[in-house]
Every structure is written in structure tokens, then in C-alpha cells.
């Protein structure tokens, strides 16, 4: 059993700034929990506080109900994989993996058995007598994992473990880490800046920004019901499109590509005539024929096409369709001097259109998100 409770935990740096502010969440036993956020959001600091390498300024961290704020890292029975792997360069792979067991003063035969077992799980058998400098990045990563799992820790902490690997290896190791965690069933906290890793790996995800938790939930919850504009923009790739809009008479949403009746599921009474930010994910645009019935349709000009094989992402500019509007879309709005509206939309990859072409697009009005233009808070739909 290992349940971690982070209870209003804050960290203030010597300079006076807050690295982590009043963070509260519970990681359940056996859960794969992700801390995700842009760099400098305090996620690594939080992890270091959990493992005991950083002092806690305020709040309490409990492991199975016991306060561990003051517990030395060596007594926490947590294992950690560092972003740089932090392998001991003067020791062989075997000595590296055995190091925690040696410190725990296990008998020699038991150490050998456990190291061989860990090496077997991670396919390190042939590398045991090598030094870290003779290993590739992926192999070093495995050794770091081996050193972490060999002591059968209560909690497994990973600090951006894949960020130094190339893209292909990263995907492979991601799968292996997921499989390993499920196999061992150890409570795991995983820090990453990559929303894809967070979505793929996490049972639950906490999204941090400037030291504060923005939202905690399953990847699906974060994707479908982001609590604010930041979460909506961070989760999902390519990122959600944001458009400034006004709500006019009769709950009509006045978007740059034309008006759209607000779905009744929004709290319409609170939205009356307000300025809002509208969020539409690239995957919620469709070709008019493939869109759900009654989806709003608009024309757009393609300014960039990104073809990925399985997907085609188009960067488009809506072409105003109401009478008297100018013909061509512009990258800079002449009235405001601001960049023109550019939407990223996902379309079927076999679409034979390229830069400069015009097309008709529809979007699923039932899937749009609305955010307060001032606070960025989401107006959640009633389900």
C-alpha cells in the first residue's frame, strides 16, 4: 500500500518567489499519476519535495497517512529516475543497479538475485559489466529504471525520463514504462512537459502552471472538459483554436467565420451579451458532407498544409461570407493591425487541396468550448 497525499503544499525559493503554491491532491495506491506543465511550472520541484530532496515551505505530504515532511530521502523508500539518468559513472551497470541494495545491506546472494531479475525484466543481461559511458541513451535509461525497480520501492518517481531520447525510442520506452508499471503495480508519479506522454500514460493527470494546479482528472476529463483556457490549450495536439467572439441577440455567437447559435447546454443566462473566447479543437472541424447535421459551414482559404500520412492538418483563414466583405483573407487585419484569424483544422488525408485553395468547412457546434474573456475560466456545459 502506498497512498500519497499532497496537502496544501507550497514551496518558496530563497529569492522569495513561489515555485509551488497550495497544491493538493491524492495519489491512490497503484495509480499512475502524471504531473504535467510547461517548463518552470514547479512540477519537478514538487517531485523533489515528495522524494525529500527539497524542503517543504508550507503544507504536508503524507504517505499512507504518515507525515513525511521531515523524513530523510533515504528513509522514504521511494525510487526515482532522473531526467539525466544520474548513473554513477565509476560503477558498472551491475554495480549501479546493486547500489541501493548494497546501501540496504542485503546479503550478497540476494543482491545478485535481485539485480539479475531486474536486468532480465529490462533486457540488460548482456550489459551488466559495462560502464555507463559505453551505453547508448536508451540503454542508460533502462539502467536508471533498473536501479529504481530493484529495491521494490513503495513509490516510483520519474522526472522527465524520456526527454533525452530520440522520438522513436521515446515512444518505445513509453510503452515499456507503462507495461512495467502495470506489471509491478507500484504507485507512480511521472513528471513530463509532453502532453502526449501525459495523455497516454496517466491514470490521472495534474496540470500545473506557475506552481498552481490548473486541473486534475483523467486524460479524458482534461481533454473533454478543460476547466480553463490554459488547460484547453495545453492538452491536445495540435492545440485548440481560440477565437475571440461576442454573444449577440438571441444567444447567437458572433464568430469571425459567421454567426452560430449557442448550444442550449451552455448556461445561457450567464452568457448574455458577453465577450467570450471560443475554443474549437482541430479534430472538430469537418468537411460539410461529413459533419453532424446542422453544423455551421464557412469558407476558408488554405495557407499551409501539413500532411502526416494518417492525418492532414490545414492552417486556414476563414473568408468572410457576408455581403460587402472583402474578398481575400489577410494575414494582418488592416483595421487592428493584429494577425488575422488562422485556424488549424484536421481533415481526411486524401483531400487533394493545397496552399491558396478555397474550401468549405463545418464545425461541430456541440463540441465547442467557451471561456470567460477576462478570467479564462470555462463555461462548462450541463450534461
Amino acid at each position: 500500500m502506498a497512498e500519497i497525499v499532497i496537502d496544501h503544499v507550497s514551496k518558496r525559493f530563497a529569492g522569495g518567489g513561489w515555485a509551488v503554491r497550495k497544491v493538493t491532491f491524492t495519489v491512490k495506491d497503484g495509480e499512475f499519476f502524471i504531473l504535467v506543465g510547461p517548463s518552470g511550472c514547479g512540477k519537478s520541484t514538487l517531485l523533489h519535495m515528495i522524494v525529500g530532496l527539497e524542503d517543504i515551505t508550507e503544507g504536508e505530504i503524507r504517505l499512507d497517512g504518515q507525515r513525511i515532511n521531515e523524513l530523510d530521502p533515504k528513509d522514504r523508500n521511494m525510487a526515482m529516475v532522473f531526467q539525466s539518468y544520474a548513473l554513477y559513472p565509476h560503477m558498472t551497470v551491475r554495480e549501479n543497479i546493486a547500489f541501493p541494495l548494497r546501501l540496504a545491506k542485503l546479503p550478497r546472494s540476494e543482491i545478485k538475485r535481485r539485480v539479475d531479475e531486474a536486468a532480465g525484466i529490462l533486457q540488460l543481461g548482456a550489459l551488466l559489466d559495462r560502464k555507463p559511458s559505453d551505453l547508448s541513451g536508451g540503454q542508460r535509461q533502462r539502467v536508471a529504471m533498473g536501479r529504481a525497480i530493484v529495491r521494490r520501492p513503495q513509490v516510483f518517481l520519474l522526472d522527465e525520463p524520456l526527454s533525452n531520447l530520440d522520438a522513436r525510442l521515446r515512444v518505445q520506452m513509453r510503452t515499456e514504462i507503462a507495461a512495467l508499471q502495470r506489471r509491478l503495480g507500484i504507485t507512480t508519479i511521472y513528471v513530463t512537459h509532453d502532453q502526449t506522454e501525459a495523455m497516454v500514460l496517466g491514470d490521472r493527470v495534474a496540470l500545473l502552471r506557475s506552481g498552481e494546479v490548473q486541473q486534475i482528472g483523467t486524460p479524458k476529463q482534461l481533454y473533454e472538459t478543460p476547466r480553463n483556457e490554459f488547460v484547453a490549450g495545453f492538452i491536445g495536439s495540435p492545440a485548440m483554436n481560440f477565437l475571440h467572439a461576442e454573444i449577440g441577440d438571441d444567444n447567437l455567437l458572433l464568430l469571425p467565420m459567421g454567426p452560430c447559435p449557442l448550444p442550449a447546454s451552455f448556461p445561457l443566462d450567464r452568457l448574455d451579451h458577453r465577450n467570450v473566447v471560443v475554443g474549437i479543437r482541430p479534430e472538430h472541424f469537418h468537411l460539410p458532407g461529413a459533419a453532424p447535421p446542422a453544423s455551421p459551414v464557412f469558407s476558408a482559404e488554405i495557407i499551409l498544409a501539413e500532411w502526416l500520412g494518417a492525418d492532414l492538418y490545414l492552417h486556414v483563414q476563414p473568408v468572410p461570407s457576408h455581403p460587402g466583405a472583402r474578398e481575400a483573407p489577410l494575414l494582418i487585419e488592416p483595421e487592428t493591425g493584429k494577425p488575422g484569424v488562422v485556424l488549424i483544422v484536421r481533415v481526411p488525408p486524401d483531400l487533394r487541396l493545397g496552399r491558396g485553395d478555397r474550401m468549405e468547412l463545418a464545425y461541430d457546434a456541440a463540441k465547442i468550448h467557451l471561456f470567460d474573456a477576462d478570467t479564462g475560466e470555462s463555461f462548462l456545459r450541463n450534461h
Partner: protein
Amino acid sequence: MRMRLKGTDGLPGALGSLLAVAYALLPVIWIVSLSLKPSRELGNGRFLPETFSLEHYRAVFTDPQFPAAILNSLGIASITTALSILIAVFAAYAIVRLDFRGKQWIFYGTLAVAMFPQVSVVGPLFELWRTLRLFDTWPGLILPYLSFTLPLAVWTLTAFFREVPWELEKAARVDGATPSQAFRLVILPLVAPGIFASAILVFIFAWNDFLFAASLTSTDRARTVPVAIAFFTGSSQFELPVGSIAAASVVVTIPVIALVLMFQRRIIAGLTAGAVKG
């Protein structure tokens, strides 16, 4: 003649190297040659001895002064080295890893001490040591040696500690090590080349010093080899014991050469390769 360091320069490079080596080694060979000449050949001006003789070696070791001086030298230099490295390791670690007030002052203070002219402290030390009864004792030499070798050792080791990734220490702590275990088992082995390098430098300083040893000792109790050699006397006051001086000089060079040869392979940097990404 400029020395080239590239090994692929062919003949000019080889010649240059040869010249440099000859320039450095000629006086040494001359001394070795002198020490092996029998007394009657000493003045003949030939580079190599015609007959080999160990009489001067026998002579310096039968004189009780010289073995005593060697013992003093070995003891004083070893203790100086051990203490200097011990203190410097902790000082350098603290300078690199800890944040404390006046850190910069300590760092530059040590540098200032290293640049201090030694001659200027000899006189006051002489008076002070006589009052404190440290004159002509081992500690009387070890103390000034420490103050002049510590800056060197601290600076060298600071450079090595800076190279060690801090995450290794964190990893060791998470792996279950106490702070002292993390230091001993992970950090220390990685700065070992630095420790050997500075140990050799400190040892050579203490071994070679003449100024303090000549001024702060008066008898066999603490007199070190360089001074003992200078005080060698011939059979009469008009004779300079060239042969004995040469033999003694060869003998005092041996420990230093042995030390360097023993540890030179340990002084290979790059031990930290592979610790972190790269």
C-alpha cells in the same frame, strides 16, 4: 625553437621534442653521472664516468645526518599532503555545493594567500615559532606548508568538484545513502583524479621547500633533505663535497619520480563521462 605538440609532425616535431627533453634532462643526467664517478674523476670534466662507483652513495648514507633528513622530509611532506588534501576536499566541496555568506571572500582569499611572498613571513615566523616552541619541530614546518599548499589544493579540487553533476548526489540520497555515504561512495571516487593531482603538487612543494626548512630548523630533529644537502661538508672546509651532493640529490629525486609514475594513470580526467546524458 618552438615546441610542437602535434604528434604527426614527423621529423621536425620529433627533433623539437628531442631538443626539449634533452634541455630538461641534461642537468639531471649530469648529476647522476657525477654521483657515479669515483672521487678522483670528479674534476675531469667528462660527461660520462669512466669507472662506476657507488662510494658517494655509501658516504651519504653512512653519515647519520642524511637518513635522518630523509625521514624528516618523508614525514613532513606526507603529513602535509594528507592534511592539506583532507582540508581542501571539504573546503572545495563546500565552495562548490553550499551557499553560505562570504563564499566568494574565502575563494579569493585563498588565492591571495597563494600569491603572498613567502620570504615576508619567514622572519616573523622565526620569532613566533621560538616563542611557541615550534622552532625546529615537524609541526613548525607542516603549518607554513599547509598555508601555502592549501590554496593550490582548494583551487584544483574546486575545479574537479564543479565537474561532478549534482544529480548524482541526489540519486545516491534517494537510493538510500546518508549524506556521508553519498559523498564517500559517489562523489569522492569521481574527484579522485583531482585528489591525486593536487596531492602530488602538494607533496612536491613540501618536499622541495628550502626557504622555510632552512630558516625554521636547526638540527636533525626537523631538518629536511634540501637543507641537509646544502649543509654537507667536505673533509676540510676548503673542499666542496660534489660527489656526495650529487648522490644525495639523486636520492631525493627518486620519491618524487616514483610518486608521479605511480599516480599518473589515475590523473586521467574524463572519469565522469557517461554519468548524465551525452
